[in-house]
């Protein structure tokens, strides 16, 4: 049950170990890792810069995590999101869910990512080789993905 926003990279194996360490009631651990792609719409990008809204980010991610814990029987969750300037191939976001049951772990991880994508206050700016940089447009599909979780 933790939420972190940080500039530095994360170590997925170490994060799983910290979350599940010495527990024998878990059974299933799902991770999602989002990484920077080297191109957008067919054109190469050189860097991606992530801006966020300090304070609200943590509050919103905490609300999303609390909602997941209410919906699924989870033994643990972790959300780590990086900010600042990243390069193609770099990690952006890590979500981990642990549960006694694999379907709960899978569903909760998808839920956390769908909510995070549509509600957590992060914005991406992509720089191109010619030096220009554009803010990434939000995708309608992310809003649609969120709607399937409506109760």
């Amino acid at each position, binding site marked *: 049950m933790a939420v972190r926003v940080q500039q530095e990279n994360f170590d997925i194996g170490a994060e799983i170990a910290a979350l599940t360490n010495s527990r024998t009631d878990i059974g299933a651990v799902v991770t999602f890792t989002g990484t920077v792609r080297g191109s957008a719409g067919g054109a190469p990008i050189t860097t991606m810069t992530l801006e966020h809204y300090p304070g*609200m980010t943590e509050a919103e991610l905490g609300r999303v995590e609390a909602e997941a814990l209410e919906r699924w029987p989870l033994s643990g969750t972790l959300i780590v999101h990086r900010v600042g300037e990243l390069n193609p191939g770099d990690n*952006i976001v890590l979500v981990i869910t642990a549960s006694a049951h694999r379907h709960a772990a899978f569903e909760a991880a998808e839920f956390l990512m769908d909510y995070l994508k549509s509600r957590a206050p*992060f914005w991406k700016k992509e720089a191109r080789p010619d030096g220009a940089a554009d803010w990434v447009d939000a995708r309608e599909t992310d809003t649609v993905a969120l709607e399937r979780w409506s109760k």
Partner: protein
Amino acid sequence: MTTLDHASPDTTSQTRTVTLRYFAWVREKVGTSEEAIEIPTNLETVAQLIDWLKQRGENYSAAFERAEVIRTALDQTHAGPQSSIADADEIAFFPPVTGG
């Protein structure tokens, strides 16, 4: 003859201080990330505040030109155009989020 009761100021001229925060291209267009400003207390909704801000200068009118794509948070919680700003101390404007 006036009394203190009758002397209460016209509500259109009453103001209060709020913190406005801007992110991503809204921040770039307004030209600042944060400002404390006096807003009239008769502004009731997010939409009314946006209309009022657009009168303040070209940077604001450019930032809020397509008001329908602007997202708002009141005290760090998502809000809509018709949400009441009466209790909000910190009001943030930003484009649809693109994290993850």
